[in-house]
């Protein structure tokens, strides 16, 4: 058989077998014992032509609700933002997307320079000294940050703010599962920030790390300076997790406020929602901790002729050299997604990121104001907020959200599953993509049903 991705003609196969010195293809598999051979064809659907495939999958895609078919107010760690047209066209240059990890720097300078630029942009954004070439997503980056803090402090107690994205908390728990670590929750205060009294009560000299979101899961902006100060009093590290990095266009950088490790997700920087991935985790540290960090790093150097060039460096931290003593097992990362984020940051630049952050702030503030006046609904937290907020409903949340769906609105994420004490609440996200009419429609739909 011939197939468009496989060039062998029958004649080629015959010639090649002859050169190898065997009679049949079967003879190439002599080392595979008869007892483990599959003696029937694979039970997989018949092959589809290009036209059939696209027709079938486009039809299936109609079963999905997206911000194109619905007014969407979903956030919670994945955000609907403006994606400049340029990004997809540039990452479709196949010299970028059909290459792999730049093991051979002489023919990988494109990837390497772009990663060096990504590392630099993440440092500038977070106020940190060094950033790696990417992690899988914000949650796994957060888990790796906890492990790094454990190695740096040689301590085992981890304090996780309950206001940290519950999915991030879940991944931290998975990664720590068999490493004899103690995970302790820190309560949320009335303003929606991490409760400082509870933190003070739980912080002690066995604490390796305190982890908080910035903004946190409820959209509230934590007082990172105070969290850092309290953590450092006990020799613990502060990890700040930024699930919505557009906020850093406006907010003080975590580095400036004293964070020791800053992680986050770059999805907001030009990556499609894609039902949760691929996204891109970022990971930034202080200069003194560079050699303890996970993941690939690109460094500047020169070639034989003195030209500037870039290489993978400090590889002695990594699994292919250090094996079981490596700082992480990560190998493949999210390179192309990091490139997308790099292009996004280049286009938006200094002014654009700030303007986008201000628009998010303004839209969410407008929505909060409008929603707060509706009978049967109230805002839960009064701390400073970015583009998300929690709404409490007198009517059951499931009913409210399903009524909104009928009006073509994805109204928010119900919080009951992750926070049983907040079963009457949902999380609303408003970005620069939500026009005023959409917000007004949300308000009208809630008004209509709440009476």
């Amino acid at each position, binding site marked *: 058989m011939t197939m468009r991705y496989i060039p062998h003609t029958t004649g080629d*196969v015959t010639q090649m077998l002859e050169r190898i010195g065997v009679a049949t293809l079967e003879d190439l598999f002599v080392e595979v014992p008869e007892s483990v051979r599959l003696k029937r064809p694979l039970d997989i659907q018949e092959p589809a032509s290009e036209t059939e495939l696209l027709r079938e999958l486009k039809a299936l895609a109609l079963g999905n609700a997206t911000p194109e078919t619905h007014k969407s107010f979903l956030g919670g760690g994945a955000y609907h933002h403006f994606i400049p047209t340029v990004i997809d066209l540039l990452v479709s240059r196949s010299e970028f997307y059909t290459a792999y990890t730049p093991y051979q720097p002489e023919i990988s300078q494109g990837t390497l320079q772009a990663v060096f630029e990504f590392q630099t942009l993440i440092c500038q954004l977070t106020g940190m000294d060094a950033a790696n070439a990417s992690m899988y997503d914000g949650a796994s980056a957060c888990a790796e940050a906890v492990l790094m803090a454990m190695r740096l402090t040689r301590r085992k107690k981890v304090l996780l703010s309950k206001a940290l994205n519950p999915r991030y908390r879940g991944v931290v728990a998975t990664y720590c599962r068999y490493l004899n670590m103690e995970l302790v929750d820190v309560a949320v205060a009335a303003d929606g920030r991490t409760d400082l009294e509870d933190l003070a009560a739980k912080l002690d000299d066995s604490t390796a790390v305190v982890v908080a979101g910035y903004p946190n899961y409820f959209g509230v902006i934590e007082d990172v300076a105070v969290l850092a100060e309290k953590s450092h009093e006990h020799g613990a590290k502060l990890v700040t997790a930024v699930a919505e990095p557009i906020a850093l266009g406006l907010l003080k950088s975590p580095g400036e406020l004293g964070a020791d490790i800053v992680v986050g997700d770059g999805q907001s920087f030009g990556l499609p929602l894609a039902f949760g991935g691929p996204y891109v985790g970022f990971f930034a540290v202080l200069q003194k901790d560079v050699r303890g960090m996970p993941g690939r790093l690109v460094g500047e150097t020169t070639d034989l002729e003195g030209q500037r060039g870039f290489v993978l460096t400090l590889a002695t931290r990594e699994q292919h050299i250090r094996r079981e003593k490596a700082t992480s097992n990560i190998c493949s990362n*999210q390179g192309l997604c990091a490139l997308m984020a790099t292009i996004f940051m280049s286009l938006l630049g200094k002014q654009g990121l700030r303007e986008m952050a201000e628009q998010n702030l303004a839209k969410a503030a407008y929505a909060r104001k409008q929603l707060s006046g509706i009978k049967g609904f109230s805002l839960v937290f009064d701390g400073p907020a970015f583009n998300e907020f929690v709404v409490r409903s007198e009517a059951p949340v499931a009913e409210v959200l399903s009524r909104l769906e009928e009006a073509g609105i994805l109204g928010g994420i119900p919080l009951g599953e992750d926070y049983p004490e907040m079963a009457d609440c949902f999380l609303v996200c408003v970005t620069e993509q939500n026009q005023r009419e959409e917000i007004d429609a949300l308000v009208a739909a809630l008004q209509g049903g709440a009476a």
Partner: protein
Amino acid sequence: MTIVGTSGLVLNEKLLFEHSNPGRKGYSLPKLDVPAAELASDLCREEIDGFPELSEVDVVRHFTRLSTWNYGVDSGFYPLGSCTMKYNPKVNEAVARIPGLAGIHPATPSHLAQGTLELMYRLQVDLAEISGFAKVTLQPAAGAQGELTGMLVIRAWHEARGSKRSKVLIPDTAHGTNPATAALTGYDVVPLASDGVLTLEEVEAHMDDSVAALMVTNPNTLGLFETNIEEICKLVHERGGLVYCDGANLNALMGIARPGDMGIDVMHFNLHKTFSTPHGGGGPGAGPVGVTTELIPYLPGPGVEFDGEMYQIETPKAASVGRMLAFHGNVGVMLRAYAYIRSLGGEGLKHASEMAVLNANYVRARLEGVYDLPYTTRSLHEVVFSDKDLEGGCHTLDVAKRLIDYGYHPPTIYFPLVVKGAIMIEPTETESQEVLDEFCDAMIAIAGEARDNPELLLQAPVRSRVRRLDETTAARKPKLRWQETS
């Protein structure tokens, strides 16, 4: 011989930051249609120090130029062993960009996400069929995260039975991710010696009641099928352990033999290797994990379920090891892999494996006698040579660099560690006989150059945008970011 490598006009390009010009912009946003809002000034930063200011043209030209300094599968032959650099079909890219699939938020309720959920479910079922496992989770983001998932599942299974085993056996041919993963799961690593393939005696000598699992790669990193796999699995099971398989090399076996039928308990797939999704200059990949029936309760969640009418995101079971990522995994990569499986069908997948094995054996036949072949057992999808017979004081690194001048991406070098000066070639099935012949001619010519004019190798590459780079200084005085003063 036609030499593929040549020189063209390659353009210089500064760093983004060196192009920046205050006041320039490369974006447009709609006018704000609600009243502006303000945050307390003590929360706000000044401008982001050093962030670039560029026009759209600046940005487009910048990244276009950078792209020309790269070599990808679309540029030419990329025989990077163990990475399965096969052609990345373009229709897969179109599939991942279908608006309804690319634009859906991960928190969309299941009944409004039926399209994506159905595709994920179909992929789970197809991967289970290809591998012979009872169930597959799609969540892990890459091979190494798949390994972590699998080893967590193994540990959870042991703990549920009150077993406190502390060690994992790993052959010396393994990828570095295997021991690193075992450590992340809280296990101590016991290395096993192999002589090409793992022997039952070697496993027997180390397999006691302190050993939780054996991690194998099959076919292994020498491209050899682990012929004793059934007996080994049986022994490990008899002594209370489980067997993990690194599925990096599944491209040799589709439709030929299934790891689940060999007695293996857990295996990860690399969708970016076997199932043709692009490697993206380092990622994203995806590392689904298949398990036997007994291990299903421990799989990470959430996963996709089908009740005969609706596809649902299921809540993880109580025994689950938890979630590996914030959401449902690298769904965009899954869509591409599904498109690949649909395009080939069962027979096509088997054909792909057969042609991958044919290609590796063809390269082996053409280069045997020119380069030292340390293991002579019949190879599957890749073949490992060494630099033992190379003359002129040249080594594997020099061959690799000289291949660049000839227009090829070098093979994987110095891995597996058991072969000194290893040259690990994996051609994949998407290369024609003509391409393989040109590559082999180049390899043979290079061996001749090493003998007659070694400087050609030692100075190589000379045609690339940059020459050999000073990696020692890069590591000794790391410069990991641009700074204004630099």
